[in-house]
């Protein structure tokens, strides 16, 4: 009996000492370095809608995106996360050439949509933006009626020949955006009189009214309350059946809830891309982990 007692009690005193450094950390120092153009995880996909290689973006002299290579698959929801100024919005805006309007902005590298160069000078940018729609941080409805907001795109793109066709597009888009039942009796009312959440869903309806292939969302819920946010997130899940969705978000929980893959940007580098479940339970890169666990921001 005495052997049992002594052997255990000495070991116990050993464990009580809290100063021991964790062996796992001692043995393998975790890597925080980033190599230019290197991304851990699974940045490439077989069925790529966007094929982006060695993308660099400069604002004048300063480089905002550093050699990012990434595929975005058809009908996937991919979330871009990262601290402020990491380049995620800049990168998003490359995908429908929204950066063109900024004079000092230069984009380098290969960016292809369905195998065709996005930055081909002969490309019709208006047509591109109809295929790759965008929803912004703040809801920005036109100061027009609800109906006219949604009908605007189809009208200028000539998608409807008759009023009844236009009516169908408007109704269909509002239904897809989960807004039809709330507004069907007041389509002529000014859009600016709607609540913030309704306005954002109206903007989504307006975006999908021109039948885009891709929807870019730049922090679409940051100005919305939790209920409106939940509705937009629900909508994202439904829309992902027919569209490719790329969402920039500051809410990591939102990225975890809505996306299939998550891409983590850090100081212009694409550090890690992985299945969202993996990123939020066992990320590969130390920087990703530090960010999502709230260790720096």
């Amino acid at each position, binding site marked *: *009996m005495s*052997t*049992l*007692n002594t*052997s*255990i009690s000495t*070991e*116990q005193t*050993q*464990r*009580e000492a*809290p*100063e*021991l*450094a*964790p*062996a*796992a*950390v001692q043995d393998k120092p975790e890597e925080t370095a980033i190599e230019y153009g290197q991304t851990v995880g699974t940045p490439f996909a077989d069925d790529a809608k966007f094929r982006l290689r060695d993308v660099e973006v400069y604002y004048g002299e300063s480089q905002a995106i550093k050699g990012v290579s990434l595929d975005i698959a058809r009908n996937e929801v991919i979330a871009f996360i990262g601290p402020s100024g990491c380049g995620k919005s800049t990168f998003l805006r490359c995908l429908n050439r929204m950066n063109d309007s900024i004079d000092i902005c230069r984009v380098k590298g290969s960016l292809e949509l369905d195998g065709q160069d996005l930055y081909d000078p002969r490309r019709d940018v208006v047509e591109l933006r109809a295929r790759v729609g965008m929803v912004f941080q703040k809801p920005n409805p036109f100061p027009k009626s609800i109906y006219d907001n949604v009908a605007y795109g189809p009208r200028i793109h000539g998608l409807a020949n008759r009023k009844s066709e236009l009516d169908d597009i408007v109704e269909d888009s509002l239904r897809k955006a989960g807004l039809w039942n709330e507004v069907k009796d007041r389509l002529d009312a000014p859009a600016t009189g709607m609540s913030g959440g309704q306005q954002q869903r109206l903007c989504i309806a307006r975006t999908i009214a021109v039948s885009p292939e891709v929807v870019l969302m730049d922090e679409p819920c940051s100005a919305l309350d939790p209920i409106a946010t939940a509705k937009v997130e629900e909508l994202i899940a439904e829309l992902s059946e027919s569209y490719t969705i790329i969402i920039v978000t500051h809410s*990591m*929980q939102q990225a*975890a809830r809505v996306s299939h893959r998550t891409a983590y940007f850090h100081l212009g580098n694409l550090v890690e891309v992985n299945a969202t479940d993996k990123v*939020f*339970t*066992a*990320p590969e890169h130390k920087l*990703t*982990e530090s960010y*999502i*666990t*709230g*260790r*720096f*921001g």
Partner: protein
Amino acid sequence: MPTQKDEVYGDHISHQFNEELAELKTEFLKMGGLVEQQLMDSIQALIENDGQLADDVRGRDKVVDKMEIAIDEEATKVIARRQPTARDLRLVVSVIKMVADLERVGDESKKIAKFAMGLSQEGQAPRGYVEARHIGNHVASMLHDALDAFARLDSEQALRVMKEDKRVDEEYQAATRTLLTFMMEDSRNISRCMSVMWVLRALERVGDHACNIAENVIFMVKGEDVRHASMERAEEVVSR
């Protein structure tokens, strides 16, 4: 140099979050210490025929149960408040699961204490004490090592605990055979031998719980679930 808690779980922007995780770890280790004591006391009560000590063990089981509930509550609060991710999430989830294992070890200790009390009243069983002491010693050190692996986030030590479990199972089989043979030879002692048999069974279960804790430590450190996987797989995960 920062202490281990600072280095691994302690450097959040939110100090409150650091403290909540540290608290969770500390409380878990406290409960681990108490359960270890319960296990050792129950074995001692059995071997030294100490009815009073056995009674103490049974009384203290309530404290173990209370700690289980308290730690579960704390872990739930951390999830609700902080939505932990990655290693923080793995810590919280593992603690919730390991606490259940510790509580079960507490129950097994209580069970051993119950048989120890019975035997102290009826008179000791004629055989099985050597085996009980041996296996008891073995599983107690497994439990200790598993908790140590948790405290130091040492996945290699956790792997060693997993490997020990197989040896405990073999020892248990061997001890069972010995007791069975003895019972067949002399049927007057069957009842008391059965009590020892149940004790051995309880100890073998403690080994399983220590093994579960070790598997959770590997999950916490490496982010990969090695439950129900082969030992080769576990070795591969730990060596990464």
